[in-house]
Structure formats: structure tokens, C-alpha cells
């Protein structure tokens, strides 16, 4: 099988796994890992945009250029994207920490439930759809940590 094809499959696969993690997980940390995987997949896709097998960096060595040269632009772009995603990862983790301190849970459904309750309390209205929704489980908040 063609090496480039394997890389493409890997990039799209990483993006799919990451998206599935974001959509299907309920634990905040797993969602954050999902985002990291998704970003890695997107970065790989960007690198592959002009990937050529066996190409070297376009640097002038010993008076001559390499025969096959790789396009340096996507590599510079990916470097920028990685830096951005690291920064955003740090922001996400610090926010997750604050949420855990406030609500004592990292389960995104519990967090949402508590947040909706807080908003409703502040506004002085009933919880939207509270008659249909299952009762919130706060046991992890009380027993854990």
C-alpha cells in the first residue's frame, strides 16, 4: 500500500476518533483528549497537503539544493497551529480545574445540569424541561474528593 495513503487514513482516522471522543464522552478530561487528537489529525492533514516521499528540506547544502524538495510552508503553519493548540489546551485545563473546584465533578452532563440550575436560580425561573429530565445524580460530587 502507498505510504501517503496510510498517512491520509491515519489523519482522517485521528480526526474521527477525536470527534467521537468529544461527542460521546461524558468525562471532561476525555473530551479534552478528544480535542487534542482531533487537532493532531488536522495538523497531520495539513502536513500531508504537500507531502512528497523522500523529499528533503529546501536548504542549500554544500553548494547544491536537494533534488526533491519539500514545501516548507505547511510545516511552518503546523508549527504555529501546534503552538496555538498547546495554549488553548492550557486554558481548557485551567477552566476544567475551576469547574471541578466549583461543582466537584468532571462529568459534563452533571456540570451542565448544575449550570442550568444555577442559571435558572439566578433568573428566578423553573428549570427548563425539568419535568421530563431524569433526576440529576450528585453522588460523585458529595462522595468524591
Amino acid at each position, binding site marked *: 500500500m502507498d505510504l501517503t495513503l496510510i498517512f491520509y487514513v491515519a489523519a482522517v482516522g485521528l480526526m474521527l476518533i477525536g470527534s467521537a471522543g468529544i461527542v460521546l464522552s461524558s468525562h471532561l478530561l476525555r473530551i479534552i483528549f478528544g*480535542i487534542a487528537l482531533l487537532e493532531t489529525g488536522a495538523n497531520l492533514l495539513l502536513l500531508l497537503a504537500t507531502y512528497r516521499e523522500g523529499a528533503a528540506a529546501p536548504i542549500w547544502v554544500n553548494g547544491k539544493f536537494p533534488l526533491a524538495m519539500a514545501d516548507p*510552508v*505547511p510545516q511552518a*503553519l503546523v508549527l504555529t497551529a501546534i503552538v496555538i493548540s498547546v495554549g488553548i489546551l492550557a486554558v481548557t485545563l485551567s*477552566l476544567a480545574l475551576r469547574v471541578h473546584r*466549583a461543582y466537584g465533578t468532571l462529568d459534563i452532563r452533571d456540570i451542565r445540569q448544575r*449550570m442550568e440550575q*444555577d442559571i435558572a436560580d439566578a*433568573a428566578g425561573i423553573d428549570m427548563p424541561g425539568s419535568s421530563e429530565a431524569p433526576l440529576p445524580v450528585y453522588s460523585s460530587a458529595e462522595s468524591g474528593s
Partner: protein
Amino acid sequence: MSKVVLLIVLPLMTAFLLPVIHRVSPFAGRWMGPAVLLLTSVMGILLWSELGHGALAIEIGGFRPPLGITLYVDQLALLLALAVTVGTLLLWPGGGEDRLRQSTLALLLAGAGSGLALSGDLFNIYVFYELLAVVSYGLIASRGTAAVFAATTRYLIISSFGAALALAGIALVYQATGTLNLAQLAQLAPEKLNNIQGLAAFVLLLVGFGVKAELFPVNAWVAEVYATASGRVSALLAGIISKLALVIIVRLLILVFPQPEAHLVMLVLGILGVVSGELAAWRAQDLRRMLAFSSIGQLGVMFIAFSIPGPAGVFAGLAVALHHMIVKPALFLLAAQWGGSTARLAGAAKVSPLGAGLFVLLALSLIGVPPLPGFWAKLLVLVNLSEQAQPLYYLGAGIILAGAALEANYLFRIASRFYYAQPGQTPPTVHRGGDLATASLLGAGLLASVFVMTPLAAQLQSMALQASDTAHYIEVVNPEALP
């Protein structure tokens, strides 16, 4: 033209110097931010009068387009940059105890927003978009309650998801064309991006950048963020930043994605946005979430308008966007103190006649009652929709009308509460002076625009003509490119 670069650089630089300045002199730290934004606003207005109906491109660092980054200034880009700068100045969030951090973030927001509006390079747009996203997380979370941290986290997850999709879209564009400069993309697009790969790239970019523009499938964050963030931050995000993201998408649509399917994708998502937003707003029981959902509906109207091909669509979309840019921040400012359940608002007109009157005026314009500007904007969209051949556009027109009926229902429901005081109920709180003054200013601007509607429309039309002229864009950025 150093003024263009300064529009971006001055706020960014001041933001990073602000902690130092604040340590030396708290007074300077307090007033530096607004002063710099005032300066950049004046520079922007001077630039506007110099520019006239022309456009100019600036190569950063003197590097030619394939290697360097281009800034592109036409009337539309400059209007957006000005809107971000003036909007941040008017809705300056740097009050309270956390003044330093909020001032820094607000300046970063102005700088990143101007950069996003003026940038002529796809990856540069992505970088400024991410900067804007991080800054808005900080501004939202600065209120410091548990609910706002949870809302910001959920917003961040959706936004990061969108940004990664946008990056994948950029990869597809680069794979097909080998460049990310918008002018070069515009040249290559009819040949290389007019296929299924181009459409996939557009959908990825649309969903990615659509997170901030409150696009239909990726707008779950809107209600909870606007319900928990401070009034001024909600006003900024809903009023200015959402339109900025929308116009960036439209610019990409015009320049880079020529296929008719791209317009249809935007139309369908816009229709779904109007339906979901207006229905949710109609059901909402508290004022802030009602305004948040109604802004999803309004953004849906804009997506529908911009999906009309050619200058007519850009003209109609710009009219709705500009109108919303004035009305929505004012409404969010009024909701800052009246945010709770709508039942609590009974008798608000007695407490604050000016606030209640303003709310009614803004609501009437939002619904589209003549002769207020909102009516002309919606009329323009409907007329242009009715001229399209594709039957889906008629559905869009019908949905916009139905949405207006729903809007009238829920906004009048609130307005009528204002004027019927119930005995034995505590009246709502009075607005803070600054919020009410800014909202009055915006309301006065809205009223004044009624009298200059004809020249305003002519100006918007020339802006739309210029923005939808791809050959003009290519020629300005790269004069040798065209024969």
C-alpha cells in the same frame, strides 16, 4: 499606509504593555486602553475618508504575496475593523475590581478583531480567529461564578472542535492550490476548487468559523454564555464579533468557493438557524436567554441573505448585519440589570421610563416595523429572495416572515409587561448609568439613520459591489496577475 497596520498593532501592543503601565501608574493603566482605542478609531475614520471607493493591499514586511502576508483594505474590511474598535470602546468592559485583566483582554479583542477583518491570508485569518477565541473565553469567564466557568468550558469545547475543522478545511484548500493568499486563491479557485474537495473545504471552514457566528449546528453555547457572562461582554460577542465571523465566511465564499452548492449549504443552515433560534426564544422564560436565542435567529436571517449569489445578497446581508450590530448590543445592555425572569419585569416602565421606551424602540426595529431601519433591511432580504429561481429561497423568505411573527409575539409579551405594574411586586432594578447612556446612544443612532436612509443605502450598495468584485480584489493585491 502605516495607519492600517497600526489599527492592529497599537491595541495588541498596548495590551501587552498594560500590566507594566498599570504598575507604574494606576491612573495611566486605567485610561490607556480607552485612549488607544479612541486613537485607532480616529485613525480608522481618517483612513475611511482617504480610501473613498478605492481599496489597497499592504504586504507585511515587504514580502510579495506567495511568501508574505497581505492586509487587504476595502470599505467592507475597514467598516468591520472600525466596528470592532468603536464597539469595544463603547462597550468597554474594564470596570470593577478586575480592571487590569479585563482591559488587557478588551484591547486584545480589538486588535485581533481588526486583524481578522483586514487580513488577506487564510492562515492568518485562522490565527487571528484563534486569538479572538481565547480572548473571548477570558472575557466571559472573568465574571468568576461557577456557572460562567461551566458555560465557558462548554463554549471552549465547541469552539476548539470548530477550529480543528477549520484547520482541516485550510489543509484541503492548500492541498488543491498550494497557496493561502486570498487573491491567489481567487485566481485559482474556478479551476482548482470548483469540485467536491472545494465544497468539503467550504463546509469545514463554514462550520469552523461558524461557531462564533452562531451557525445552526454549532451554537449550543450561545444561550448559556450570554446568560452567564456580564452584559457588556454579551453585547460585544453577540453584537460585533458574531457579525465579524460571519463576514469573514462570506468573504471566503465570494473569493474562494465559486460553486452554487456552497450558497445552498449556507441557505439551509441559515433556515435551520432561524427556525431553531426563534422557536427557542419564543419558549424562553428569562430575558437574557430570549435575547440570546433571538440573536441565533437573526444570524440565521443574515446567513440566508448572504447565501443569495452576487452583489444583491451581499447588500441585503450587510444591511441586516449592520442593523443587528446596533440593536443587539443595546438590548443586551438593557438586559444587564433586567436579566432575570420576564415575570419580574412588570412595571419596569415606572422605574425606568427611558429604559423601557428604548427597549420598545429596539424591539420594533428588530421585528421590522416601518419606518425603522430593521424594516428596510428585512424588506431588502425578502425582495432579493423572491427574485431567485431556486425554490429553496422562497422557503427562506417564508421562514423569515414566520420568524418575524414569532419575534413580534415574544418581544411584545415583554414590552406589555413593562407597562402593567402588578400590586405587591418588587419593581426591577434600575440600570447602571453607563449602560443606559450607551444604549441610548445606540438607540439615537438607530433613529438618526432613519433620516439618512437613502445615502446610507447607496453607501452600502457600493460597499457590496466592491466586496463581491473578485477581479477587483485580485487586481488590488497583485496588479500583474490579470492580463
